[in-house]
């Protein structure tokens, strides 16, 4: 029987897939709506592409997690606990999200794109709260994971949006670059706060090791690289169109790496601990022990 925290085995890459698909999809749906609403990014076809892909991503995420549940034929039971379960809440938002998204796609944007974006924001929030409610996993239950998961969803959405816009129209909207840059900076901040808080409060050593290894790669390729590209994009204006989609791709992949790592690699459980070592017959108890923890 293990004592030190060990990696949970209940949620694997499939669960990470839901956070990746759901986060990126909802983020994209929000940026699709923003683009559409402001008519900044051109024709309705752009919205359709973006929103369509967004819904596919969210659906893929749900399909991924559906593949993980033990009793798929009872999947509808997932709706039974909206009182406290963020999983139920996420599931309840989903049909409305798909419905409004589908209508918005049919209409090529408009009011329903706003409704879909708001529902997407709700869905993204549910996901962030869902992981934070998993009290058994120290790297998840840290409340600062909520802003991190929300902001990375937005970053991924903006990144994807930039990619699609570039593919569709060969343009690189300056506003999108600016928004993505701001979002990236916020993500850097959210990550830093999350990571440092976890280190400060104490966590399973192995989880911290995983996050420490992630940090270098994530901050280099998922943060610094796109940030520099975006600064360059803003500086060069529209002359270097490739800069924004490239930054978007890096920001997107960085977000996926972040979530995959946190969900499927840093998910060491609580393990066991003793606040005090028992007295055996006579003598004194000893100070407690929390094996495998940083503090």
């Amino acid at each position, binding site marked *: *029987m293990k*004592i030190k925290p060990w990696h*949970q085995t*209940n*949620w694997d890459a499939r*669960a990470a897939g839901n956070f990746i698909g759901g986060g990126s999809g909802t983020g994209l749906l929000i940026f699709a709506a923003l683009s559409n609403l402001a008519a900044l990014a051109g024709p309705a076809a752009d919205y359709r592409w973006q929103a369509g892909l967004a819904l596919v991503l969210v659906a893929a995420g749900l399909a991924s*997690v559906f593949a*993980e*549940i*033990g*009793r*798929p034929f*009872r*999947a509808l*039971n*997932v*709706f*039974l*606990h909206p009182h*406290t*379960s*963020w*999983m*139920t809440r996420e*599931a309840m938002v989903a049909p409305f999200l798909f419905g409004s998204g589908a209508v918005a796609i049919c209409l090529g944007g408009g009011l329903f794109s706003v409704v879909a974006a708001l529902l997407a924001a709700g869905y993204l929030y549910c996901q962030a709260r*869902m992981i934070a*409610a*998993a*009290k*058994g*996993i120290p790297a*998840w239950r840290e409340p600062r994971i909520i802003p991190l998961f929300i902001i990375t969803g937005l970053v991924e959405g903006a990144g994807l949006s930039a990619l699609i816009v570039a593919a569709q129209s060969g343009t690189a909207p300056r506003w999108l670059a600016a928004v993505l840059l701001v979002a990236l900076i916020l993500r850097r901040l959210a990550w830093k706060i999350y990571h440092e808080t976890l280190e400060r409060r104490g966590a399973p050593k192995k989880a911290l090791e995983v996050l420490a290894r992630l940090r270098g790669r994530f901050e280099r390729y998922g943060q610094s690289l796109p940030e520099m590209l975006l600064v360059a994009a803003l500086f060069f204006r529209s002359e270097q169109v490739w800069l924004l989609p490239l930054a978007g791709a890096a920001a997107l992949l960085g977000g996926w790496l972040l979530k995959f790592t946190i969900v499927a690699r840093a*998910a060491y*459980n*609580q*393990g*066991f*601990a*003793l*606040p*005090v*070592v*028992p*007295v*055996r*017959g006579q003598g004194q*108890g*000893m100070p*407690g*022990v929390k*094996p495998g923890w940083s503090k």
Partner: protein
Amino acid sequence: MTRYIMTADLRRCIGCQTCTASCRQTNATPPGVQWRSVLDIESGEFPDVRRSFVPVGCQHCGDPPCMHVCPTTATYQRADGLVEIDYEKCIGCGYCAVACPYQARHITRRIDFAYSATPMANESARFDERRMSVATKCTFCMDRVDAAKENGLTPGVDPEVTPACVNSCIAGVLAFGDKEDPNSKVSKLLEETQHFRMHEELGTDPGFYYIWDKK
């Protein structure tokens, strides 16, 4: 009000795993699925070293994170404090398992019997398909606790209505009873001893008390 709890006197525990074996058998859990087990925790540095044996399992929390996250209401809390799972409702999403800070929940997707894929007579007799691919955990031997109401017996006193692990314990480590009843064995033990609850700082209000010294 009733709140059933369990106490484990760590001064007494020797890690014999009798409770583990008894639970495995009474609840017919598959090989490797231990609703009750006893940890062997070493602490200190040579030569000032201690080994503590610590029974663990579902803590039947007063504020159970597993229940809050469960999307199906399969995990529920009874008025008497027991946290239970409705196997017919559970979808096996595993959310409760990652929400539990006590690593107490198990989901068995594929069963390996003790010696092969073919069950022995005792395994066939007790195999329960309802428990496949759903979350399972210690029930505090709910069926026994419920039987107490029917036949006027007292859980924690009469073995017929006491959890198997408590009945089996050969070192007098485990006790079970109603914390709200000042005359119950567990209430008296808590009154007389110093104790803690594991990971109490997480706010789960666990129903499992670890005794470590006299008062």
